[in-house]
């Protein structure tokens, strides 16, 4: 057991390292920053696996050793336990030598008195054994202590195994779904952060999740109150099964996966035309780069359209203000931007870049080989000319503050490349996880707790009784001791003896022959 304990403390020490250093699975960008700030130490840490403590081989090894050590220790303990339960309590010779000892005189013959003592002990929860002559009783209780301890430790082993199997064969990742779109559970559809267990077969369920509607609710302060994704769940063969609401603290289970509300964002629908040809048409999933400590709701959303088929290639950077009234209203009245919690005269600033696109990412743009050709603003329902920046249609009726409303194109203006912004949708980010052992982990955790309490609050006690006939009555010698919680037994023991005396006095003394005659 000591080895197991040392291994457990080693795991604790390792997890302390894991909580103090940034970890790749949680915050890869912080790991990168750390390695730039501390190149030499960072390199050693990386080699030692300190940036992924919980996925490192030595963490797994310690876990495996802990498992082996626990099992190796528990098997003999369990055997001994089973043996001792089957064993009858053994009679003692010198009862008066025990720490607690009483002598009482009771009426009746010795065998009857011993029988009464046996009954009283049984009523108090003792396991009892009566000697061959029927005049002595040996009793003990408190097997629950060792049993509880064994349950606790075995449950801990089960917990370890269940966690390893669950995490090892499961997967967890995030799915981004724009309102109206359907997402299918397949490895390449995840947001690029899919984490698959070591022993996973790599198979996914193939279920579909269609986002019917996303809604949220904020207090005026900008504190979020609720996020709800109304989804339609679709079986792998394409049949819609049911609709459900995924909200915070209310995940939805479907076909072996659990779906959690994780995040949300805005997805403006944009159409880009080159003359009559449509270059792009669809929603753009936007992200945010809110500085630390700034309410993200007061920060514009950023997204990109990359037109790689054009020569030279074109990228359009979009900056969305979902509630331009709150944002610009706050700014223009000399205050700070107000939280943008709902769509209200949505507005985007755009910047058109030309040159060579080096990365396909839709959340960032490498502008090293690009230059700006035009920029401007576009409101919902507008169409703008991307080459000159003027507003082709829709600019007038926007309700935007004057300063951000663009300038209309000259009458008769013919634009080569235009962009329109017909609608603003929202997207939801759902966390999709597949973990088959969760019920086992929970069960094991409950057993750990029950075993712990049983082991801590029960105590082993032993009692011996011998009855000897004297002067027409019987002298009961009662001795005993407790292995734990001795002060409690000091109180319980006199009561036990008193109970025996009472029982012997009260029970009509039935001669043994009468019993035999029946």
């Amino acid at each position, binding site marked *: *057991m*000591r080895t197991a*304990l040392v291994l*457990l*403390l080693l*795991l*604790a020490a390792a*997890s*302390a390292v*894991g*909580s*103090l250093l940034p*970890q790749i699975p*949680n*915050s890869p960008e912080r790991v990168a920053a750390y390695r730039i700030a501390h190149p030499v130490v960072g390199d050693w840490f990386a080699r030692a696996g300190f940036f992924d*403590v*919980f996925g490192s081989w030595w963490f797994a090894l310690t876990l495996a050793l802990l498992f082996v050590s626990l099992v190796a220790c528990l098997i003999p303990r369990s055997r001994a336990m089973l043996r001792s339960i089957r064993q009858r309590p053994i009679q003692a010779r010198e009862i008066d030598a025990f*720490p607690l000892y009483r002598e009482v005189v009771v009426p009746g013959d010795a065998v009857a008195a011993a029988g009464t003592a046996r009954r009283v002990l049984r009523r108090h929860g003792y396991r009892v054994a009566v000697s061959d002559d029927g005049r002595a009783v040996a009793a003990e209780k408190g097997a629950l202590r060792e049993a509880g301890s064994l349950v606790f430790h075995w449950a801990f082993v089960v917990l370890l195994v269940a*966690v390893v199997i669950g995490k090892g064969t499961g997967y*967890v990742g995030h799915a981004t779904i724009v309102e109206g779109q359907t997402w299918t559970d397949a490895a390449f559809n995840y947001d690029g952060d899919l984490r698959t267990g070591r022993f996973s077969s790599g198979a996914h369920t193939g279920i579909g999740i269609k986002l019917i509607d996303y809604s949220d609710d904020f*207090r005026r*302060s900008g*504190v*979020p*109150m*609720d*996020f709800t994704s109304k989804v339609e769940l679709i079986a792998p063969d394409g049949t819609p099964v049911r609709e459900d609401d995924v*909200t*915070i*603290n*209310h*995940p939805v289970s479907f076909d072996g996966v*659990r779906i*959690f509300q*994780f995040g949300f964002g805005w997805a403006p629908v944009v159409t880009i035309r080159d003359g009559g040809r449509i270059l792009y048409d669809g929603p753009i999933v936007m992200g945010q780069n809110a500085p630390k400590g700034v309410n993200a709701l007061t920060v514009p959303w950023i997204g990109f359209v990359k037109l790689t088929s054009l020569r030279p290639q074109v990228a359009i950077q979009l900056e969305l203000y979902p509630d331009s009234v709150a944002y610009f209203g706050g700014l223009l009245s000399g205050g700070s931007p107000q939280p943008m919690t709902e769509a209200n005269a949505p507005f985007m600033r755009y910047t058109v870049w030309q040159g060579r696109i080096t990365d396909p990412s839709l959340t960032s743009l490498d502008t090293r080989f690009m230059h700006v050709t035009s920029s401007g603003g576009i409101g919902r329902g507008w169409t703008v000319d991307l080459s000159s920046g003027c507003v082709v249609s829709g600019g007038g009726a926007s309700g935007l503050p004057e300063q951000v409303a663009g300038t209309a194109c000259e009458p008769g203006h013919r634009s080569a490349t235009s962009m329109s912004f017909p609608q603003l949708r929202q997207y939801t980010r759902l*966390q999709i*996880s597949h*973990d088959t052992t*969760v019920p086992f*982990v*929970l069960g094991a*955790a*409950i057993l*750990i*707790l029950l075993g*712990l*309490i049983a082991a*801590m609050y029960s*105590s082993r006690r032993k009692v011996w009784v011998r009855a000897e006939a004297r002067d027409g009555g019987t002298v009961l010698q009662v001795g005993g*001791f407790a*292995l*734990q*919680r*001795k*002060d*409690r037994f*000091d109180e319980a023991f006199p009561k036990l003896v008193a109970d025996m005396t009472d029982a012997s006095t009260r029970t009509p003394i039935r001669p043994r022959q009468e019993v035999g005659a029946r």
Partner: protein
Amino acid sequence: MTAADWARVSSDAFNAALFAYIAAMVLSFAYLAFRREGFHTASIVVGATGLVANVVSIVARGIAADRTPWGNMYEYSSLLTALIVVAYLVVVEWRYHVKTVGGFVFAFAIFTMAMAVSFFYVGPTDLQPALNSYWRQIHVTAMITASSLLGIGCLFTILYLVKLASERRAVAALGSGTPPPIVGGSVDADLDDDAPPDYVPGADEPVGSGAPAPPARRIALPPSATLDRLAYRFIQFGFPIWTFGVICGAIWAQQTWGRYWGWDPKETWSFITWTIFAGYLHARATAGWKGAKAASIALVGFVSLLITYYAVNLWIAGLHTYAT
């Protein structure tokens, strides 16, 4: 009364409680120094008054925010303090009649409250939706109860070590060749011995201490065996509750974040603390690790508890950063 009024009541009551605890601490230390029964009585009365104010502050805060008032670090700290003082008054004063350690308990309560005001104060506001779950209430209640019990246990461990050292010094000062006659909790044969068979109150006082006149102003802590037993009792009580709290936290995490365990710093440190106290409980049952050695494990556990409670919120980023 409006929410703002209730918020002010809560704030005023908090301050009243803090000052009452400070007064109770001073009175309790005065009792140690001058051994006048009046100081002790006054300390208990003032401390209990502080407790009432503390509870009023918590309730008023709940009314002001219109939710259970344990949603951020400030509120946790206020609740933790109340539970520490309740546990002290009920168990230590009432059940065990130990009069000399109140000052240390109040000092711990004051530290907790002062930290809350200095670093964690926020107005009674709404909660993030993730915190809006009944598992939050169960989890947080369990964690704070366990923290207060383990905290008091560790306080007694510190006092035990202090007393043990002074007893050893007293024995050494006798200069006789007698072996250190320190018996009691430190030499128990079993895991949770409440009183060894040979335990007599005062038996762990140095042999012959009655002969030379005791120093006039000795700090009269209870015998080390009593302190050790109290420490063990509190930790033993707190450990399953801590376990329960961690399990509830995992259930809540499974509901909210989609995983029951994710090595978030707060989760990690609650596991570390659990492990260390598990080590302490095992050490108590292991020959050669009792007494001061086991106590030192409990102290490491206390440090880990403080890291879990404070450092994770103040310095380590994670999902549990409710302080801001």
